[in-house]
């Protein structure tokens, strides 16, 4: 269903016409703005460009002094090395697969648990609702790294150290509060009357939620899930503390592990980083419209 929340909510055919954008001062000012923005863009984008460049340079060009910006031979060997090792599949490719599993499953779990919870908090009179919601939010107050050691000890007791399940559980635990809070905002925006009307029309409350509210929530769910996915995909601290073997380890600690030997294969590090960054970029690009809706939701009152 391709209705965004905003479209679905507007009650009349008449749309507000936003006033024309405010003009900034004279020409000098716009030149200054462009200059500043250019500097900012270069500073922000240079590391990314350098990473991409390094990933396609031959090793001698990578270490060349002075550095070569344009005049180098393009090669895809590093990318091959990311996936293929002499003995078959590389350890890195296994870690990418682990990342996909861990991030994917924890995101799905957080969504499946968080969305109905958000719906319930939004729709029903729950005892001490505000306190419960505050408690849920409070689990995100501290930096996650604070609990690494307790979690490590607990995981050792129950045998979750160095397992994918362990990572999935901890990522889900971090994403559920976030999902509940973000989704509650979206559910609040969908009038409860849809469900009331559907219930009077012969549906049960759950059917009403499933058939009417849920489709209207899809943009919000997409936005929330992308944020959860990005968190799980990028997470480094828990991954490096709680996992050690190659067949469990996710990509971030695996890539970090490439650095630190006597020599560092920067070409391989760069190529692995590019491969690692791509999926999230693509995913975020696909749902960018919903992401913006998700971030700005609630900023404008109707």
């Amino acid at each position, binding site marked *: 269903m391709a209705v965004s929340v905003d479209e*679905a909510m507007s009650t009349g055919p008449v749309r507000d016409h936003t006033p024309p954008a405010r003009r900034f001062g004279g020409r000098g000012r716009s030149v200054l703005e462009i200059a500043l923005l250019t500097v900012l863009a270069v500073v922000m984008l240079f590391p990314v460009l350098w990473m991409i460049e390094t990933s396609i340079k031959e090793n001698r060009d990578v270490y060349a002094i002075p550095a070569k910006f344009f005049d180098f031979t393009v090669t895809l060997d590093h990318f091959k090395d990311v996936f293929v090792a002499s003995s078959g599949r590389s350890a890195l490719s296994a870690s990418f697969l682990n990342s996909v599993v861990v991030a994917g499953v924890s995101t799905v779990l957080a969504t499946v648990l968080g969305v109905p919870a958000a719906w319930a908090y939004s729709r029903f*009179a729950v*005892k001490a609702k505000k306190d419960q919601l505050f408690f849920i939010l409070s689990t995100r107050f501290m930096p996650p790294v604070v609990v690494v050691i307790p979690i490590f000890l607990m995981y050792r007791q129950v045998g979750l150290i160095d397992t994918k399940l362990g990572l999935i559980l901890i990522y889900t635990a971090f994403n559920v509060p976030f999902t509940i809070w973000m989704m509650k905002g979206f559910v609040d925006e969908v009038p409860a009357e849809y469900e*009331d009307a559907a219930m009077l*029309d*012969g549906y*049960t409350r759950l059917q009403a939620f499933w058939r009417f509210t849920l489709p209207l929530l899809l943009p919000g769910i997409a936005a929330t899930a992308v944020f959860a996915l990005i968190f799980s995909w990028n997470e480094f601290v828990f991954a490096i503390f709680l996992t050690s073997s190659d067949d469990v380890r996710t990509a971030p600690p695996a890539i970090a592990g490439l650095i630190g030997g006597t020599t560092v294969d920067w070409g391989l590090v760069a190529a692995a980083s590019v491969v690692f960054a791509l999926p999230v970029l693509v995913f975020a690009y696909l749902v960018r419209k919903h992401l913006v809706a998700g971030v700005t939701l609630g900023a404008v009152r109707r």
Partner: protein
Amino acid sequence: MAGIEVTALHKRYPDGTVAVEHVDLSIGDGELFVMLGPSGCGKTTTLRAIAGLERQTTGDIRIGDTLVNDLPPAERDIAMVFQFYALYPHLRTRDNLAFPLRAEGLPKAEVRERVDEAARLMRLGPLLDRRPRRLSGGEQQRVALARALVRRPRAFLMDEPLTNLDAELRADMRTEIKHLQGELGTTMVYVTHDQVEAMSLGHRIAILNKGRVEQIGTPLEVYDRPASLFCAAFIGSPPMNLIEVEVADGKLRSQGGLALTPPPGLPRDRCLVAGVRPEALEVTEPGAERSVPARVVSAEWLGDEIIYVVDHGGQRDVRVRMPPTVRFAADAPVGLRHTGGTPAVYDVSTEELVA
């Protein structure tokens, strides 16, 4: 079609808020019954309890002969129209109308027939293929009404259906709803906070306050003899003047000397307040016959009438409705005369009508 009986309804939320203290209603078959009250008085909660969208804490609800306390909304055979129209945004008007019928599993031909009939009744012909967001507020509300009546329910429940419309459209829709209800003869429970809507629509009106019924009566009864000081202050624009009076030589006398005919059976030794409608008073030249001295504080020129606000003998802000031809300047000394019949009299301590 069926009447609705609400007995000793009480609703308390888990967080301790009491939305409905105690409500008894007996709504007749085919009646257009209005629940009127300020926000937070429990009228919407009562309506939602009748619909089955809220479960009452205690009390019984009967629709027709059926006790519906434990029935889900779908099995109560009622239709509801919401303030926010709650049309399914992804469905065209036609499908919005057909939706409840398809949910019931009616054969296609009958669904089409009933949708067409409802569309004709509400004049929705050109709108049938549009989605809700391509409809104006008034059109959406007409569709919502059509969706309610397409099911031929035993009763309609209306939750402030006109509040989101602009004034002119609201008046049109009011007429339309009244006409429709008369034609179909279906029981309708209508919730509003707008007294004009209540007075113009209702066969009977229930005035609710703080989760209790203050008064039930026809619009005229409610207007002429409000059952409590709350009703007196709520109904009428401007509302009733509440004038402190005491009984002296067979008359009700205000501090300023205004004399009113006392109703029979007045209790003695109590602080009394007389409710006098603005149109039961008259501003006259000072010293006119049977008038008491007063002073004009301000005048509201409404075109078809003038509302004078006058002070008289310690009683401030007495409102008097006069035809636009009678003009007095602000601050002018005038006379104030009672022209109406026997006023409603209230006990100050119980706030209820005593005679």
